């Protein structure tokens, strides 16, 4: 079951120039994390950045399973959610018993909660990989999510349980009331977790995770128990998911059943996969894209989740390596200097592809407006242009754009493929592509 997840990630071969570049990338990213909220100073953007930070940790933790070890989980939110709940309980206990634990340490509570549950649940569920693992993760996910509604005293039923982060002992005079302070708390844990998870991929265990992903049978004949490798990976994934959950609990000052439900598990899968599981930075991109989509699309259209689903399906079918692979594909061309050979074909393709996309969007919006058609109005506005959903002309436009756009676009896509072949050939001749 691992074909998608295993397009050889390039190992960090440590030439001095490359390792310099490697540290430079990390430095730039960390600098970006620090500077962004100083550039975008509105409260709204601070909230957005906070959510993205949490989503990145969660998606990276998910990728320890899917991308690194080849384990497809449908229930990763269990560890995120339990991390969140235990963080809230922990914070309330800290306040109630006046313990000297300041807020920045609370994510550790979540992390250890995730770790403990992963230690317990993981031993059984990682016995097998593949479909059986996927099904167990789904079953455990449903089990925990349903139980959370029964065990009300711990999970607080539908409403969840709340806390107040400003009641905790302060540290360095920070109250963590303002969003910007919460952001930096999240950013701190983001940097720590990202470095930790990256370092994990460079350890003997991390390398063996890849080996188990590629060929669990062979691993047994070089001395390793694939079950143990999967189990350890699962525990790390649980730990970092718990940290993310705790940060979410700190951010929202609440933990509820939605934290550990199927939707949350699905979103993290979407994020990791859309970003690309075969590169370490893939899930980071995915988490950014998915969080932005969640926040932005929801404002524009009521059926934003449908677009979400369509984007996901498109990625699965046409670019199963995700955004990261699409980007990294161009690296050898860039190095060989043959990238300009493909760019014109992109420019040609962009127009019909956009028209096709517009047709699909128009079709969906019109269908939505028409079928939910409240009496007052079936007029929709798309790109500031009003459309009458009940008018046949609108329907016709949608159909023509979709079908016509598709066929023209398909021709231009073939053009891209041709240009690619030529560019790759040239790159190969220059020795940049094997």
């Amino acid at each position, binding site marked *: 079951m691992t074909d998608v997840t295993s397009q050889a990630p390039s190992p960090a071969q440590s030439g001095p120039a490359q390792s310099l570049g490697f540290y430079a990338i990390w430095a730039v990213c960390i600098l970006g994390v620090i500077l962004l909220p100083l550039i975008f100073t509105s409260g709204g953007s601070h909230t957005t950045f906070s959510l993205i930070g949490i989503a990145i940790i969660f998606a990276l933790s998910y990728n320890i399973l899917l991308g690194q070890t080849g384990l497809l989980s449908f229930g990763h939110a269990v560890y995120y959610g339990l991390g969140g709940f235990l963080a809230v309980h922990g914070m309330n206990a800290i306040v109630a018993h006046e313990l000297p634990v300041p807020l920045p340490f609370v994510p550790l509570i979540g992390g250890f909660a995730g770790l403990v549950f992963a230690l317990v649940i993981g031993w059984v569920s990682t016995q097998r990989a593949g479909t059986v693992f996927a099904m167990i993760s789904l079953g455990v996910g449903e089990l925990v999510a349903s139980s959370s509604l029964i065990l009300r005293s711990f999970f607080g039923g539908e409403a969840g349980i709340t806390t107040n982060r400003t009641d905790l002992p302060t540290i360095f005079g920070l109250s963590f009331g303002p969003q910007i302070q919460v952001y930096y708390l999240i950013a701190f844990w983001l940097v720590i977790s990202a470095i930790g998870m990256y370092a994990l991929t460079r*350890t003997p*265990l*991390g390398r*063996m995770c*890849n080996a188990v992903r590629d*060929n669990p049978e062979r691993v047994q004949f070089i*001395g390793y128990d694939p079950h143990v490798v999967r189990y350890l990976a699962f525990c790390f994934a649980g730990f970092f998911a718990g940290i993310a959950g705790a940060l979410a609990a700190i951010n929202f000052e609440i933990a509820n059943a939605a934290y550990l439900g199927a939707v949350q598990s699905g979103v993290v899968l979407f994020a990791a996969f859309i970003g690309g599981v075969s590169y370490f930075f893939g899930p980071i991109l995915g988490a950014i894209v998915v969080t932005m989509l969640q926040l932005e699309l929801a404002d524009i259209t009521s059926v934003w989740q449908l677009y979400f689903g369509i984007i996901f399906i498109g990625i699965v079918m046409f670019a199963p390596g995700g955004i990261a692979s699409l980007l990294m594909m161009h690296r050898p061309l860039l190095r060989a200097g043959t990238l300009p050979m493909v760019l014109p074909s992109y420019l040609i393709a962009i127009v019909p592809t956009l028209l096709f996309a517009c047709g699909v969007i128009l079709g969906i919006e019109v269908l939505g407006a028409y079928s939910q058609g409240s009496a007052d109005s079936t007029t929709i506005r798309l790109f500031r242009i009003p459309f009458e959903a009940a008018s046949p002309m609108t329907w016709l436009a949608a159909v023509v754009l979709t079908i016509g756009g598709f066929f023209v676009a398909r021709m231009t896509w073939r053009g891209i493929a041709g240009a690619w072949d030529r560019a790759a050939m040239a790159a190969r001749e220059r020795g940049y592509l094997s």
Partner: protein
Amino acid sequence: MTTAIEMRAVEKKFGNVRIIQDLNLTVGKGERHAIIGPNGAGKSTTFNLISGHITPTSGEINLNGDPIAGLRPFEINRRGLSRSFQVTNVFAKMTVWENIRCAVLWATGHRYAFWKNVDSLPEVRRRTAEILEDIHLTERRDVPAGLLTYAEQRELEIGITIAGGANVIMLDEPTAGMSNTETERAVALIRRLTEGRTLVIVEHDMSVVFGLADRISVLVYGNIIASGTPEEIRGNPKVKEAYLGEEEH
């Protein structure tokens, strides 16, 4: 103690079909032992039994005097037995370097370590480079294993098998499908790499078998019908009849 592998009255059934029956085999320490036999005789199945890939229905298997029947493959591997596969079985999406390095990790004692940087383990690095040099793949170290040529993949397969430094090496048709020059090179490689170790090899190419082996066992229908030095096997009438006679070697 002088035996490396000892199989006594081993039987293996798949469903109701008895593939291995009353199989007795002794491989001495430091010996180069070849197993020959017609297609479907059960040679690979014997390998699978010894290496723990499958468990025998009944019978005893000992490695260096200790019973190993029923142990998992990695437990047997940790006791110093390593095998290759007839059908190339490498980590196709990982580079040649990573393939070998993974095979070195357990033996160098790093196990499941998640607190060490794998790139800065000098012992691992040195041994990986050494093995790559041995199997002539240093040039190709950064190529994903799946993109190697067939002969290169077979050499990588051997490399992974010996990388852990096991005392008992089992190779299942290492030269199958190779050209003559490639075979010669592979045989020289095997001879050099298994110096001072025990080798069990399955091979169809009789020139390889008779050139390499100290002892030969002939497996027909899941049963060893003869076992001895190359001369003894050459002269054995049962072998001639059952095996050498019917094939054009």
